[in-house]
């Protein structure tokens, strides 16, 4: 622990709450943005400019009847949303928001990141994959065929895009020579952002990230016309809210990850680190929402073939080229 | 009257050939090939067609030569080689049809939205199907004051009348009352009564069904419902023993009107005004829950308590005093199933039963070998009506059937004290002293001498030679006497006797086991032998003779249970009161005077919401007797005893009457009845048969108030002797009360008798007559 136990606990508490608050705010942003993309207003009735809409949604979800379907396995059914949500929030834990910060008016300092783990990248990828367990368990334990199908599809999607995702990330890894986020950020200092040398990898990463987070156009696992609501068909009220929560926080995590890996995270002139992180994450979230507003849903076989036949070869090619140039460059430098 | 199939003729309708008996109206023949020729005035029940409306115009060719003018298909009859073209294939016929409808609609007001006939109007239907689409009428239509009440139950709207003369033909040729006539002529013709007096007659309501437009409409149904808002429930009228088939029109849970369902063998599509208009309303006066008397009076109780208490009391009395200590008395208007239930109860407590006021006058099954059917009247050549009561008062539409037979050529012979409506058109009339019907019957049977001054020779001669005579006895005399006469006249081999039971289902009640007469029960009550009485649907102090004696006797009984629809005098001193359902609320079967079993269907729920059979089953259950609470099951038990069992579903529609065997055994000789005592000096013999318009339902129906108007009838000689003239108000005081009304003078009423339409408890004996 880089700051001591108590401070880390406080930081963790703050981080989770801020993350949740940000998530709630992002639902409003998403709905308003999609509305504007479609040349209409989004929700603007509840609260000023509709800002209390997430509160209203929360209220609605809280009041829904909490039930367990007859054919479900109760313990696993109740466990699944927690698995998803825990993994989603946990994956965000290692994101760097800057370097050392001082509390104004005192001499206390703390780091703007939870820990500088030397396996942070690996950890994030692992937790992201672990989160899919929640979908699988939820889908299977619901005791409904649509949920089962949705869960199966989620796993297939994960497997297809996890490899390409990891290969794209390894490209960055080769450049940075470290799995630690702090090192990766520092390696990009001085405008040497990895988006330029790793542009192909960045594209692969973006596509894979959209697929990993079950966002449109890769949201077949919860497509209404296909599988009713996929793995969360039999979930209602707050349990459904947890699944939706987990999905969006996954998206936030991946946006933050993209910001860290390719846009140097909290680095940037003038503005403080957290603000840069916010802007860059926000940029990627905007791209996520833009994708949602524009593209139609990808058919599942198209999705699989995209993952295996296009992204994987491209990511492999990117890796090989990167490796070649890094070795060549270092042997010359 | 078998159709002669041997000489059929060939007629062509619109190119379709048909073999048909000669002399068939073209309208009927065309229907056989499926061609509808529209008609307004054609109605076979009203006698020969008159061709008044000209709606059925067709082009006819006989023997290759076309007839120059269009012919009315209702009056034109089939001949061999006739070629008929209707409006479907002939342009002149279509032009004629269009023109007739145009003319009919010229002066017809644009009343459809406000006319009750709208939606069930033949003029609307035929105009829509066959008429021209537009009118050329530009000048104002002729108007009359409308609607005019032609009677409190029928309204006439002269603007809508299309002068088809169905109503006037009914009045003159079917009911033969001569009330509705066509006045003025040409375009000014109107349907009217004499001097705008109300249409008083037992069958006035039938013109509302005959009228093809909304000119004659029933007042109680005015503005009540439209045909698409109603449901018609098929059931049977339970006003008298004829059992006319009806449709009851139901809207929003209320029975709004009654129209005929036309059973050709029973009522031929006619209804008497009592069956049509009388209703057991208002509902607020109906008993809705059972009442039990305790020390402080009658209090509401639950059905459970009431039925259990009834059963316990009956069982207690019969156990204590033995068999015959309980009496179950009914009015003869229960359904077969209810009667069966009460009979089962009676058997279990050894009770005496009664379904009519006098035992001897209730043994209808004796007449079974000689019983005639109502349509036997159509085939008869001699109809003999004996009795002071009018046939219409006892069995409404049978009167119309007798008149129809008479018009067809039968000889109608009437033996009565005079003053009935039927005798105006009788072939022969024999005046007999009032109340001497039993003596007449006995005399004709050869079991006694005819009353003084009565010459039965002519009648006897006619009876001897008639091939299909039908005997109708309208007064309540001992059935054994009628049986004797029927046997003497061999009426089981030719013609028959038409039974005239008093209640709607007296025959069925007796068959179910409720036999016996009220006179025996009365005697038992007075002697103290009977300690418990159940009065089902009957108030003997209001409806049966010897009202005073009943009153006193019932007061002495230990337990009185009344089953009644309204609060009447019997209710006021009963110990237990159970509400009863009436006419449209009942389900079950009734047996009419012919022995025909017909189904009643419930139209509405009574105020109590329960059927009577459920209560009877509950009482029977406490007594340990199995009685099913649904009519269908009880009927299944009953039907097993019939000679020709008909199943519940076979009674749907128009119930059939299976023919019975007619083997007759010689009956025991019955003693000749005593002649009624002559009245004291200055007093008159009272002739007061129960009129048609009597009873709790009629009293509560405002539309029938004019039919109940009292009147007094005297012989012209007696009137002169008293110094009174027609329309003077006369008071008649008799044992049952005083009756006051305007005087009618009759030439046929025997001297020394006064006839009144007294609707109270039956009264006989003598009376004083004074001008009031």
């Amino acid at each position, binding site marked *: 622990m880089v700051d001591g136990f108590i401070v880390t606990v406080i930081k963790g508490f703050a981080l989770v709450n801020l993350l949740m608050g940000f998530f709630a705010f992002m639902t409003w942003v998403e709905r308003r943005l999609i*509305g504007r993309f479609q040349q209409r207003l989004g929700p603007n009735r509840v609260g000023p400019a509709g800002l209390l809409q997430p509160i209203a949604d929360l209220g609605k979800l809280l009041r829904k009847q909490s039930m367990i379907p007859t054919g479900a396995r109760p313990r696993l059914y109740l466990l699944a949303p927690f698995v998803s949500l825990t993994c989603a929030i946990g994956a965000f834990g290692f994101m760097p928001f800057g370097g050392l910060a001082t509390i104004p008016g005192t001499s206390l300092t703390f780091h703007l990141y939870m820990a500088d783990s030397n396996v942070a990248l690996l950890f994030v990828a692992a937790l992201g994959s672990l989160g899919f367990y929640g979908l699988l368990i939820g889908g299977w334990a619901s005791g409904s065929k649509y949920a089962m199908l949705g869960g199966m599809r989620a796993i297939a999607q994960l497997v297809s895009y996890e490899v390409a995702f990891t290969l794209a990330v390894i490209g960055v890894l080769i450049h940075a020579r470290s799995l630690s986020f702090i090192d990766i950020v520092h390696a990009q200092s001085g405008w040497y952002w990895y988006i330029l040398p790793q542009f192909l990898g960045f594209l692969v990463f973006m596509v894979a990230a959209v697929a990993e987070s079950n966002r449109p156009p890769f949201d077949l696992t919860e497509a209404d016309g296909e599988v009713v609501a996929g793995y969360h068909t039999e979930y209602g009220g707050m349990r459904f809210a947890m699944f939706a929560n987990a999905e969006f926080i996954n998206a936030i995590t991946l946006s933050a990850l993209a910001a860290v890996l390719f846009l140097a995270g909290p680095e940037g002139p003038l503005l403080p680190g957290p603000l840069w992180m916010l802007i860059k994450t926000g940029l990627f979230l905007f791209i996520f929402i833009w994708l949602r507003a524009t593209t139609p849903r990808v058919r599942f076989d198209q999705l699989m073939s995209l993952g295996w036949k296009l992204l994987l070869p491209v990511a492999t090619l990117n890796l090989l080229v990167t490796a070649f140039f890094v070795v060549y460059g270092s042997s010359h430098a | 009257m078998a159709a002669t199939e041997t000489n059929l003729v060939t007629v062509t309708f619109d190119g379709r050939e048909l073999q048909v008996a000669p002399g068939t109206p073209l309208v009927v023949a065309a229907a056989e090939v499926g061609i509808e020729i529209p008609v307004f005035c054609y109605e076979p029940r009203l006698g020969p067609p008159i061709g008044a409306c000209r709606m059925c115009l067709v082009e006819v060719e006989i023997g290759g030569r076309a007839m120059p003018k269009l012919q009315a298909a209702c009056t034109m009859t089939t001949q061999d080689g006739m070629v008929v073209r209707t409006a479907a294939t002939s342009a002149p016929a279509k032009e004629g049809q269009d023109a007739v409808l145009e003319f009919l609609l010229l002066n017809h007001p644009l009343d459809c*939205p406000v006319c009750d006939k709208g939606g069930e109007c033949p003029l609307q239907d035929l105009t829509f199907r066959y008429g021209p689409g537009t009118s050329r009428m530009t000048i104002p239509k002729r108007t009359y004051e409308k609607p005019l009440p032609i009677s409190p139950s029928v309204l006439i709207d002269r603007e809508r009348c299309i002068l088809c003369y169905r109503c006037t033909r009914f009045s003159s040729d079917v009911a033969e009352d001569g009330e509705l006539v066509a006045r003025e002529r040409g375009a000014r013709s109107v349907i009217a009564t004499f001097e705008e007096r109300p249409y008083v007659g037992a069958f006035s309501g039938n013109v509302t069904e005959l009228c093809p437009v909304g000119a004659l409409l029933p007042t109680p149904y005015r503005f009540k419902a439209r045909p*698409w808002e109603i449901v018609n429930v098929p059931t049977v009228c339970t006003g008298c023993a004829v059992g006319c088939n009806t449709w009851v029109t139901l809207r929003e849970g209320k029975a709004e009107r009654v129209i005929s369902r036309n059973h050709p063998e029973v009522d031929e599509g006619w209804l008497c005004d009592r069956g049509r208009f009388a209703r057991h309303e208002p509902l607020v006066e109906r008993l809705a829950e059972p009442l039990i008397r305790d020390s402080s009076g009658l209090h509401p109780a639950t059905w459970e308590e009431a039925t259990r208490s009834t059963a316990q009391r009956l069982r207690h009395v019969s156990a204590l005093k033995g068999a015959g200590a309980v009496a179950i008395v009914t009015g003869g208007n229960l359904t077969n199933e209810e009667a069966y239930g009460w009979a089962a109860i009676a058997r279990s407590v050894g009770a005496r039963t009664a379904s009519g006021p006098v035992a001897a006058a209730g043994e209808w099954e004796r007449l079974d070998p000689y019983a005639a059917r109502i349509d036997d009247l159509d085939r008869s050549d001699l109809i003999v009506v004996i009795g002071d009561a009018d046939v219409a008062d006892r069995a409404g539409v049978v009167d119309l059937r007798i008149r129809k037979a008479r018009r067809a050529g039968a000889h109608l012979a009437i033996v009565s004290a005079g003053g009935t409506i039927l005798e105006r058109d009788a072939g022969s009339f024999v005046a007999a002293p009032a109340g001497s019907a039993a003596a007449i019957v006995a005399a004709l049977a050869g079991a006694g001498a005819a009353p003084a001054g009565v010459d039965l020779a002519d009648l006897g001669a006619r009876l001897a030679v008639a091939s299909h005579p039908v005997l109708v006895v309208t007064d309540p005399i001992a059935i054994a006497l009628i049986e004797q006469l029927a046997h003497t006249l061999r009426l089981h081999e030719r013609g028959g006797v038409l039974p005239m039971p008093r209640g709607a289902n007296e025959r069925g009640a007796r068959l179910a086991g409720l036999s016996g007469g009220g006179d025996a029960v009365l005697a038992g009550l007075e002697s103290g032998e009977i300690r418990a009485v159940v009065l089902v649907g009957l108030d003997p102090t209001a409806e049966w003779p010897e009202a005073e004696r009943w009153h006193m006797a019932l007061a002495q009984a230990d337990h009185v249970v009344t089953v009644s629809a309204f609060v009447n005098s019997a209710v006021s001193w009963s110990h237990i009161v159970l509400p009863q359902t009436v006419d449209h609320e009942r389900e079950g079967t009734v047996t009419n005077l012919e022995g025909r079993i017909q189904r009643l269907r419930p139209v509405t729920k009574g105020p109590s919401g329960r059927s009577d059979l459920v209560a009877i089953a509950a009482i029977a259950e406490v007594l340990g007797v199995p009685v099913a609470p649904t009519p269908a099951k009880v009927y299944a038990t009953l039907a097993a005893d019939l000679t020709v069992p008909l199943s519940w579903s076979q009674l749907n529609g128009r119930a059939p009457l299976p023919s019975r065997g007619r083997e007759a055994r010689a009956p025991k000789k019955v003693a000749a009845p005593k002649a009624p005592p002559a009245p004291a000096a200055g007093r008159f013999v009272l002739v007061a048969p129960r009129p048609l318009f009597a009873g709790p339902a009629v009293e509560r129906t405002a539309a029938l108030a004019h039919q109940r108007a009292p009147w007094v009838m005297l012989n012209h000689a007696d009137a002169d002797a008293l110094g009174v003239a027609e329309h003077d108000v006369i008071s008649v005081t008799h044992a049952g009360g005083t009756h006051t009304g305007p005087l009618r003078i009759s030439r046929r009423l025997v001297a020394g008798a006064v006839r009144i339409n007294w609707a109270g408890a039956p009264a006989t004996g003598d009376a004083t007559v004074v001008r009031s």
Partner: protein
Amino acid sequence: MLDQVKGFSVTLRHLFRKPVTQEYPEYRRPVYPRFRGRHQLHRHENGLEKCVGCSLCAAACPADCIRVVPAENPVEGRVSAGERYARIYEINMARCIFCGYCELACPFDAITLGNDFELSEISRDALVYTKDMLLAKPERRTPSKSVELYDVPVQEMERVLGMYDVITATNPEGAPE
């Protein structure tokens, strides 16, 4: 492939356009004059009701939501202009499909459908409109477009239909059935 990218540019362009949302209830869009909304029972100029309780509207109604119970006009205080009047006239707005058949069926132009469609209630019983409610002047909350512009007068229709003869005369084959 390029089309995919063009799609994104379309969406982005739309981001900067003004939204076309019409915000109800601050802005109420005017309806066309013949818009079928809440029913209205009419009276003659002298105050007598036009409805005579003939029940043709109830017969025409495909949803069976009109209940008419007629009665004789009282001698004192005549209600309608005909022989009878509607003593009870109820329309169940929850069942009504606002098709306008009752308006078409009425022979006296007694019932017409106005423009008001804001009829929410919080209980089903309140949605059964009685005769008084239907006779009363409605709160005209729904604006409607101008009649002159959108409701073509009868003369104009006749003029247009009159041209039909010219069309069929000059081009018999081309004229539609």
